[in-house]
């Protein structure tokens, strides 16, 4: 799995630059970001006729993955500053847990770099869809919904339908895990409240 290109080489501990479009994402220290296309190709070659089912539920359905996520989230929350919302850190940790193999995780990791900075400066984010908004002709019923779905899944506005469906499946599983972990975390944290003010929050 050695690539001549250092940017596509796998498993580099420490800072690793993953090329994403024209911007580079720097993974955090100690995190391993595999070359995404390489991993996906490996996955596809290994995949039998099971289809998209197995590896997605295996990735996000484990309680082990949930524990990893909640620990990381708690860590990140402790280290977070005032500028970043909890939502952003949660998304970021989720994307980090995904190891950058999916499109939405990469998009989240990239966009978060820009978003907190830009919110500071109070500028609007550049909308990804410019041509579509201007001259949108009448799409079919299915096509409209496909566009909607692409807008919901981060980084998948322009992807074609089969890839979009794959990303959606992974994204849904990841979101479910995120919800489970965050509910448990909030429960634990609320029970630890030493102050009497909150009561039953």
């Amino acid at each position, binding site marked *: 799995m050695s690539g001549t290109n250092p940017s596509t080489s796998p498993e580099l501990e420490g800072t690793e630059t993953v090329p994403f479009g024209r911007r580079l994402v720097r993974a955090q220290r100690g995190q391993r970001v595999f070359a995404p296309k390489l991993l996906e190709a490996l996955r596809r070659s290994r995949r039998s006729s099971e*289809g*998209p*089912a197995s590896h997605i539920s295996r990735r996000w359905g484990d*309680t082990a993955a*949930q*524990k990893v996520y*909640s*620990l990381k989230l*708690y860590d990140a*929350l*402790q280290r*977070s500053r005032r500028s970043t*919302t*909890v*939502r952003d850190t*949660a*998304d970021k940790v989720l994307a980090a847990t995904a190891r950058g193999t999916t499109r939405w995780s990469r998009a989240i990791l990239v966009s978060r770099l820009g978003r907190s900075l830009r919110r500071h400066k109070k500028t609007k984010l550049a909308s990804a869809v410019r041509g579509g908004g201007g001259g949108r002709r009448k799409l079919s*019923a*299915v096509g409209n*919904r*496909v566009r*909607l*779905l692409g807008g*919901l*899944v981060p980084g998948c506005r322009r992807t074609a*339908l*089969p890839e979009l*469906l*794959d990303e*959606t*499946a992974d*994204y*849904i*599983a990841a*979101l*479910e895990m*995120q*919800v*489970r972990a*965050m*509910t*448990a*975390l*909030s*429960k*634990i*944290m*609320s*029970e*630890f*409240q*030493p*102050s*009497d003010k*909150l*009561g*039953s*929050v």
Partner: protein
Amino acid sequence: MLESLVSLESMSLSSMDVSVLERLKWLQQQQQQVLSTTNASPELLQFHGTNNDELLQNTFSHFQMLGSGFGPNYSMGFGPSHEAMDGCISRTNSCQMDQADTVGVMLNNSEENITIILKNKRKSEVKTREEEKTEKKIKVEAETESNMKVKSNLSNTEASSETSKQKSKAASETQKLDYIHVRARRGQATDRHSLAERARREKISKKMKYLQDLVPGCNKVTGRAGMLDEIINYVQSLQRQVEFLSMKLAVLNPELELAMEDLSVKQFQAYFTNLPVVVASKPSLMVDAPLFPLDQQGSLDLSVINPNQATTIEAPSASWETQSQSLYNTSSLGFQY
């Protein structure tokens, strides 16, 4: 010559591994020898006529054995082996024998009207009859090129194509290659585009089916638009839940930071590791219903209540661990979907 053929057949009958291609190559070589020896065209035809019956019978016995042998062995792409064979072998009413340049084995059976025409082709496109069941290979060029080299000695430079041309499908199919065998259904077009479209549509429907299992409540709706609607709703609801939870955590967070000065992070992490130790929850616990407007998902069945919340846990004390462990057993239900 026929004796050599018979010997070949006995040889090949014993070992079914000899591919049809090689066998036919043998036959063609024999034919070519016949052709070279007799150069006059009318004699050729007569020779064809005389030899064909025996050849026909011999090779048909072969094909029958092949058919029976292929059935159990080769599952992919063959299906009913006879149909495969029939698909390969075109049914033509007329066999134009006046083409002296047509090379190959021409076997005519007046009863069944089956002809096998082997020719050297430049194009690798397979022309199929649309009324019959056919098989089509994707990426057929590379393989037919190799076939062409094999039959190069019988090369026919003319691209005569009055009769329906078919390659030695049977021969080429026995070679183990990673092709995608797509069987076209009756009455459906078999050209490249529609096959690709059909493959694409099947892929998409497979993925939609998987999503249907993932999204609850999607079984009732039929059709792609409805399913996509459900999926969109579900994703939106999940995102909203994450939003609520993050607000909740944001409230809890600064207080926790202040309170966490006494506790060490490691102790807190120890709580997380206690989570897999799950004891059955006590039925006396009440439900702490969250403020989510969504009740569709069965996965968010938060049926854990903490009666101790009114009496908050005090800062680390000795009885801390017993209390908290009991609490953890309940809260660990959150992980237990």
